């Protein structure tokens, strides 16, 4: 197999459960982990005589998504019926948007892995074709004695995000999904919890010889429910197609499934067995007008795009790539960081270091016994519960920069701050950590240390021109001040006394 002479072309259809309290056409709430068929009502079950009523919150979430990805929000959207029979489909048709989707176009910026962890990879823009709203279906399971169906998931609002065939590798597909999940969660549009099936993906894959302009015959693999699954499936399917073509066979347009356990794809149905969904406009839901006032209101909720933020942190705030990347992945963390920078704008990198290294480390440490925390239940502290507030961290960085405490002391102050939520200054005072900047007292100590015969050799070397030899004198001085001395002042006074 010679993959280097082939180009892989991938388009994704991503199904995301939108974050809403109630279902898309019924006023019944939805969530994960309820007993089967608890989250149903006559509308969800499709009882005779029931009618769908569009949940405006779901439409607004879809519009918000569109604004996040710079899509066009049309003046109106409409629903169609997709007709097919299956026991998990309560009406045996699914309400979806075929001709008038809620968003058109748009793009998602992705970042490919760099040559190393510390080096930023290539950025690419993946175009979206559209995104449309539809309803999720229930779940059918087979037991020894028969088949069981749970309609809790039926009617959960789904946004189907359809890309253009812009992705060229499994890695790009994974990067796209990561970027999409970041944008969806940061905008509050969806939680994208893949463990709970909140994000599922269909992958359309074809291959062609490098340089060909015509797309090859594609296959569609349905219902991939993890990013690694998408990556593995695309690698498998592209390799399969290349092997088929190289061995002189043709690719059949077919719908495929993916077995994540043995990492193999299989044929679900070929083109001849393809469903005729008999789409037609749903007569129960009138065309929905999307007012410009609604769009403007939602525009205000659009958060800064993650990679825009990354560029700003690197270019305007001077952060290294690694810190910037850690921060942008978590909107709350990045917002926290920015609040600290607002309080002390002089040293964003210093603040970022504390956030990315110390704060994240301590937040991830399982806490067992502080005050109200139960001793038996370990609790991971979330940023919202964190006792250090952004301005307090800013204060710590400030007094460190100003030389009030040393970097070593700052670590101690941070630990105390994390535990108690006290101000840096209060901790410094209470612990008597203030750096000693009293020249008179320090000069006395310096004179005593210089007089010590044990350091005579170092003094002689320094005077002979060895700059580094002066450092050997600083340790004993710092020791005698119990670490409170200001290192800069020690250096300055030493040089004066050694002449």
């Amino acid at each position: 197999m010679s993959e280097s002479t082939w180009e892989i072309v991938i388009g994704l259809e991503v199904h995301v459960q939108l974050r809403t309290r109630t279902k898309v056409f019924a006023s019944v709430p939805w969530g994960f982990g309820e007993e089967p068929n608890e989250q149903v009502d006559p509308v969800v079950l499709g009882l005779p005589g029931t009618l769908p009523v569009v949940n405006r919150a779901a439409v607004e979430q879809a519009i918000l998504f569109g604004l996040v990805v710079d899509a066009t929000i049309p003046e109106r959207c409409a629903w169609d019926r997709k007709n097919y029979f299956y026991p998990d489909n309560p009406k045996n048709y699914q309400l979806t948007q075929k001709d008038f989707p809620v968003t058109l176009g748009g793009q998602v910026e992705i970042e490919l892995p760099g040559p190393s962890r510390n080096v930023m990879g290539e950025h690419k823009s993946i175009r979206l074709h559209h995104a449309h709203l539809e309803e999720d279906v229930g779940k059918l399971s087979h037991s020894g004695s028969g088949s069981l169906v749970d309609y809790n998931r039926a009617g959960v609002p789904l946004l189907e995000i359809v890309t253009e065939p812009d992705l060229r590798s499994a890695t790009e597909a994974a990067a796209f999904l990561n970027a999409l999940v970041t944008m969806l969660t940061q905008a509050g549009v969806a939680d994208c919890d893949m463990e709970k099936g909140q994000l599922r993906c269909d992958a359309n894959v074809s291959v062609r010889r490098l340089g060909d302009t015509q797309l090859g015959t594609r296959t569609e693999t349905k219902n991939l429910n993890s990013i690694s699954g998408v990556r593995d499936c695309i690698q498998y399917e592209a390799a399969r197609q290349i092997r088929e073509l190289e061995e002189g066979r043709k690719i059949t347009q077919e719908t495929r499934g993916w077995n994540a356990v043995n990492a193999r794809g299989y044929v679900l149905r070929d083109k001849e067995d393809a469903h005729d969904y008999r789409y037609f406009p749903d007569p129960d839901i009138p065309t929905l007008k999307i007012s410009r006032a609604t769009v403007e209101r939602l525009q205000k909720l659009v958060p800064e795009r993650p990679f825009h933020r990354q560029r700003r942190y690197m270019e305007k705030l001077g952060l290294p790539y690694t810190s910037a990347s850690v921060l942008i992945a978590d909107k709350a963390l990045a917002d926290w960081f920015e609040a600290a920078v607002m309080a002390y704008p002089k040293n964003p990198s210093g603040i970022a270091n504390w956030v990315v290294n110390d704060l994240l480390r301590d937040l991830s440490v399982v806490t067992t016994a502080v005050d109200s925390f139960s001793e038996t239940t370990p609790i991971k502290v979330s940023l919202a519960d964190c006792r250090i507030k952004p301005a307090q961290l800013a204060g710590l960085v400030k007094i460190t920069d100003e030389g009030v405490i040393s970097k070593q002391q700052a670590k101690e102050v941070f630990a105390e701050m994390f535990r108690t939520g006290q101000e840096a200054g209060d901790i410094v005072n209470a612990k008597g950590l203030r750096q000693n900047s009293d020249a008179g007292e320090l000069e006395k100590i310096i004179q005593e240390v210089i007089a010590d015969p044990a350091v005579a050799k170092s003094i002689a070397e320094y005077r002979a021109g060895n700059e580094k030899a002066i450092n050997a004198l600083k340790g004993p001085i710092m020791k005698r001040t119990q670490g409170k001395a200001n290192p800069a002042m020690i250096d300055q006074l030493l040089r004066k006394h050694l002449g």
Partner: protein
Amino acid sequence: MDKSQFLVWLMTNPDMSDALHLLSATEIAQRLQAGTLTSRALVDALLARYHALNKKVGAFTYLAEPDVIAQAEASDLRRKQGKALGPLDGIPVAIKDNIAVKGQPLTCSSKMLAKLISPYDAHVIEALRAAGAIIYGRLNMDEFAMGSSTENSALQKTYNPWDLARIPGGSSGGSAAALAAGLVPLALGSDTGGSIRQPASHCGVVGLKPTYGLISRYGLVAFASSLDQIGPMARSIDDCELLLNALATPDARDMTCFDKEQRTSLPPVAVNQLRIGIPRGILDKGVGQEVAAATRAAIDFYRSQGATIVEVDLPSSDLAVPTYYVVATAEASSNLARYDGVRYGHRSAQATTPVEMMTLSRSEGFGPEVKRRILLGTFVLSAGYADAYYVRALRARSKILSEHLAALEKVDVILTPTVPTPAFKAGEKISDPLQLYLEDIFTIPANLAGLPALSVPCGKSQHLPVGFHLVGAPLSEKKLFAASRVFEAAHSYRHQQAPL
């Protein structure tokens, strides 16, 4: 009124007889209010008549007597306490069996739903309960409202009270027959292509298909969602309007139902200001002689009252029946897909897999006309055929709408016969669906265009009732009522009693 006035009124009022079953709802309301009649007494009389006649007529498929009596007694108690809820309080309204009533069967006269008990009330039922009306029994119909003779019911036959050898019309045949037989003063029907107006005409009662969107469809089992409307049926115009007023309230559960701001009804027009449009050549198209004569007599009457009669052109009306049978069956094929035996309804005992269960349940549960329409609707939506059938039908539909709206700019109402011929004999057309589909030739355009349309008794063809049909602009129900009230007042068709 005081006692002496009351006695004078009693002696001069011809309806003040023991024949409570012949009273109009309006008259019942007056008596209940005057304290000369109780709801309980009325219900007792109607139940006695039900026991005497329902087997003969076959109008009702279900009647829960204890529940009906309890509702009547509750109404009488409210009235006694001065808490009567309005003019309908204590008056029975019978319900077509495709409108959901909590705790009662919702069979749609189909084997598929024969054992279904509705867990909820339709919007119209909530509205009737709020008005104090008594929810009174369930009425036979063509299976899933597909038919024009009620012969497609899988439950029982219904007979025309004017001639028991004949059909009552359909699909709201049970509703029309119950009214004509004096089994109930008011009834609900539903109308997708004429299902209220055609049986009303055949049974000599009044039936309105309201403007699409005026009455919530929440709780009406869908046949063709873009055409279906629930409507009032009664023995007089006043009663029909009384019932409509209780039903036509906003409902957020039906997105196609008008909200409060959209309910801007057109005012009535005095008869000497009335402009009546007659579609050119309408009486030449297979209309029975006596039906044509009765229609001409009605036109002459209006002319004599000072109305202006003008001919109107509706060139696309010829497309109405084929357009209807594409649009309605397409929607029906999708609407009826949910009956698969998985969640409720008939479930085949023969199946071994879930998919087989769905197939067999549907094969066993649906009758031949329903299957015919599902197959037709599936075909017209299929890939490769949808453009030739469904998409073209939508274009014809919008043409029919624009022609009607243009005509209704020039006239207040369009008058035609309701049905070309009177009620036919049972079994006469059941094997000839195309002939049967022509029963709705005059009624279908109002559904395609979403316009209000009323059937009013206007004479006889031999011993069988005949009705005329008025179509108006959207929300012109008051105009239709006012125009037909003039006719009704001058003729003796009101409360005409079928010779049972």
